[in-house]
């Protein structure tokens, strides 16, 4: 049974000129990278371009990567800088709700084998509602939410990526959750409407 090499090992080999190691590294982080940039530009092609730029910058700076650091933290730090550079130069319109709802329905289709039609309907709606709410919160909150809840990073790792104190990240997460809850409540996903939604789903 082959032991999976760590990200740091792959980075070291890629720095030494191993194309296979770099390919493996890109394969591991392609989806998180595109997902992260997409949350800010709301355009899939542009998100992919920014992610490509991020990977190229990572490759160019592999010499400066400290293997003692977690690779994902360093990677997201570089990717975030690429995204911020782009957003500073280009002011982008926010994503339309329709796009995000469509995206939510696409995701709901992923688990269709394991869920009943009723569950699927409710899950798809909720996923799209959360996706839409995510696009409406403040960008600094959005990035901590994406890194925490979509990429599964810890608060200290997020603090390292963003260059913020851990306490600030905790505060951002708290406020972000509050904003998400408020937006969802306005859209009818609050606790009071739970039974009504359930009935509607059934």
């Amino acid at each position, binding site marked *: 049974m082959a032991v999976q090499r760590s990200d740091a090992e792959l980075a070291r080999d890629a720095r030494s000129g191993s194309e296979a190691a770099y*390919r493996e590294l890109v394969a591991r982080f*392609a989806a998180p990278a595109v997902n992260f940039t997409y949350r800010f530009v709301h355009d899939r092609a542009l*998100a992919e371009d920014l992610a490509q730029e991020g990977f190229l910058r990572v490759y160019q700076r592999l010499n400066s990567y400290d293997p003692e650091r977690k690779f994902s933290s360093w990677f997201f730090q570089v990717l975030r800088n690429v995204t911020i550079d782009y957003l500073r130069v280009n002011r982008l319109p926010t994503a339309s709700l329709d796009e995000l709802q469509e995206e939510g329905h696409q995701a709901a289709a992923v688990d269709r084998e394991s869920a009943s039609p009723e*569950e699927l309907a409710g899950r798809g709606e909720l996923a799209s509602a959360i996706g839409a709410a995510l696009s409406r919160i403040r960008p600094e909150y959005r990035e901590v939410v994406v890194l925490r809840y979509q990429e599964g990073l810890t608060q200290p790792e997020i603090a390292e990526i963003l260059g913020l104190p851990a306490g600030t990240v905790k505060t951002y997460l708290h406020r972000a959750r509050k904003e998400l809850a408020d937006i*969802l409540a306005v859209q009818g996903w609050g*606790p009071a409407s739970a039974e009504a939604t359930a009935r509607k789903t059934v």
Partner: protein
Amino acid sequence: MERKQLDAWLKAEQGGEEDAADAALAHLFTAVPKVPPRSVFVEQAVINAWRWRARRRRLLAVGWTAAAALVIAGAVIAIVASPLIGRSTVKAIAYLSGHTVPWLIAYASVALHGWLTLGHVGAVIAAALVTPARVAAVVGVELLGILAFYALHRIASAERLGDAQV
């Protein structure tokens, strides 16, 4: 299931239960779709990186070649031109020496002569001052001279006054 998770999250959020809210929202987010990259994404990223790597290597090679060429050209110029430069330099030094050294020697001898004369004068004055008798003689002569000038001044003044009174 997700509806229950949503309610659990919102309840934890309202109750101020940070950890529970964090865990519940993390679970909810597993249903939120990620935007997957296209199938060619990885290949494109690798191609981009290796193109950049090749371009960088080319630039480095060109840089090293240019530096080596400059060093070689400098060495060749130094080797080929150094005899010519050496000869012309020796000639110039000989020419300047032939025209300037005699003049420098002549001026130096005149300056030396003047310096020796000043030295003699200084020695005479010093010899006069070193003995009390000679000092007294010099002072006496100077006092006599001063008195003579004073007397002449008085006579000249009296004559001017007399003329005016007339």
